[in-house]
């Protein structure tokens, strides 16, 4: 079973987001970087499937040279090989991002690497475009199930579960298939020391796709209007309990 997982390097935001002076991005000078929780689960799922069934796990990203850090981290968690589609400067729009990934998958296929499963996060943590996986699936003429929180593979048929208001819905598809996953699919492992050491020696390829402008163009990033809340401190320690109960009464929550 050969699996490709596509991830995106994004700032690890913590509690506050500061913007750059030109208001086109998040100021990342004091931030670390990561991939989205959905993608962490995609990596974990790929590693688990390959541990069970054998095969190769490839992790790919389209991003700056520094995205090597996120690819190495996925290698440390058990992926076998990494592909960096290196770009300068700002994010690419979804159409061009998907095209570059498709081109890479086709190049891989031409050199004998066929994927049975291609996994994306359901949406990126930052831009949240909800479309790269679906675009890649159509370009490769593969079926696509999004928002997946459960995967079961038996004899070339993949069963994907996703959550809906009424419970779960189940899709059965013939592989190869494209999936987009959501956090909750599994509990991702942390890289071991051995994994981290080994990741430095795993195969890593770079290429620079050529860029043209897409039809969704970011102009400016801004903060939403602040709701201007002022917190009322009810007290300190256990002594605050009676005032909290007064609040519960006021809100009608003690009936």
């Amino acid at each position, binding site marked *: 079973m050969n699996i490709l997982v596509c991830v995106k390097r994004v700032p690890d935001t913590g509690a506050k987001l500061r913007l750059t002076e030109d208001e086109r991005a998040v100021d990342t000078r004091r931030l670390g970087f990561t991939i989205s929780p959905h993608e962490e689960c995609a990596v974990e799922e790929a590693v688990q499937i390959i541990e069970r069934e054998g095969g190769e796990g490839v992790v790919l990203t389209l991003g700056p040279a520094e995205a090597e850090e996120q690819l190495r981290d996925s290698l440390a968690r058990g992926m076998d090989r990494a592909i960096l589609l290196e770009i300068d400067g700002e994010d690419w729009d979804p159409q061009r991002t998907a095209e570059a990934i498709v081109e890479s998958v086709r190049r891989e296929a031409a050199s004998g690497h066929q994927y049975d499963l291609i996994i994306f996060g359901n*949406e990126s943590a930052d831009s*949240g475009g909800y479309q790269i996986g679906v675009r890649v699936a159509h370009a490769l003429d593969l*079926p696509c199930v999004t928002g997946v929180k459960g995967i079961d593979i038996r004899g070339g048929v993949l069963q994907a579960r996703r959550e809906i208001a009424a419970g779960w819905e189940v899709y059965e598809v013939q592989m190869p298939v494209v999936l987009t996953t959501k956090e909750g699919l599994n509990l991702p492992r942390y890289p071991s020391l051995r994994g981290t050491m080994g990741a430095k020696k795993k195969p890593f390829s770079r290429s620079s796709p050529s860029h043209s402008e897409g039809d969704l*163009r970011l102009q400016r990033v801004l903060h939403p209007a602040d709701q201007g809340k002022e917190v009322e401190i009810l007290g300190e*320690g*256990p002594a605050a309990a009676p005032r909290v*109960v007064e609040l519960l009464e006021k*809100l009608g929550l003690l009936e």
Partner: protein
Amino acid sequence: MILGIIEHDRGVIEATSLQMLTLGRGLAEQTGTSLEAALIGDDAASLEETIKPFGMAAIHRVTHPQLDDYAPAAWAEAVVQLGRARGAQAILAAGSDRGNEVLAHVAAKTGLAMAANCAQVEAGDVYRVLRLRWGSSLLEEAELSGEIKLLSVAPHTVEATEARCDTVTVEDFEPTLSEADLRVKVTRRDETASSGVTLKTARVVVGGGRGVGSAEGFAVLEELAAVLGGIVGGSRVATNNGWRPHTNQVGLTGTRIAPQLYIACGISGAIQHLVGCKGAKHILVINTDREAPFFSKADYGVIGDLHEVVPALVAEVKKRG
């Protein structure tokens, strides 16, 4: 014309589709054209009366023997064919799981650009959209071009309002579907019997984070939730450490809650978490650190160790009860 895709699950519609229609009507007014709606599948027929008051000129009943249950690529193919037949200048969907999914398939099939989760849209040769980033922590102004503009409307950013159209024509439309469009279709459903209070519907949610420290530490939060008829939730720290199952997670990649009161215990207030509890009417934060960012987003605060404050609170509620 502006075409709105009505999302439904076997004939059950959500408010987000009505919000989408309201934004779509505004767009139709801006561009001097009309709003039309697509109801896909036989079980959507019952929704005609529900959507009529939202000001559309036409409803298209999209039916096909294979459209008997949700199939994202097939829905998208039907929308593409209908949109082309009617000369749509924009196609809209709700910014929900299914809405974004169907629209992404429309985008992939046509090669058009798609702007997900828009809160405002200004029509023109090029559309100017204001869309949500980072799960609504930031906004983005963007330009969207293409022969047909594809937009999903961010849930609960537009208030659904009615506006009657004098005559609403109802027309049948049968798309041509291929095998490939039907490769992904719901094969089975496992409906979980609703077991009373859920994170989404609870009146009170008691949340725990890093400060709880362990799975066992949640016992006091369970107790508080029990006396208040509420339910326990957790931050991503709590679910990632395995202290709580992921289904308990309140946050961007977990559940978005909307209780009367959210009691957040030992949670610092990372954006990932704040996005998930934005819908809470009131927020009470219990934290030892007065500088925790969560206090600046809360209505009420108690400075102290949750392991002391929460048991005192349980005792006090029991005393009054």
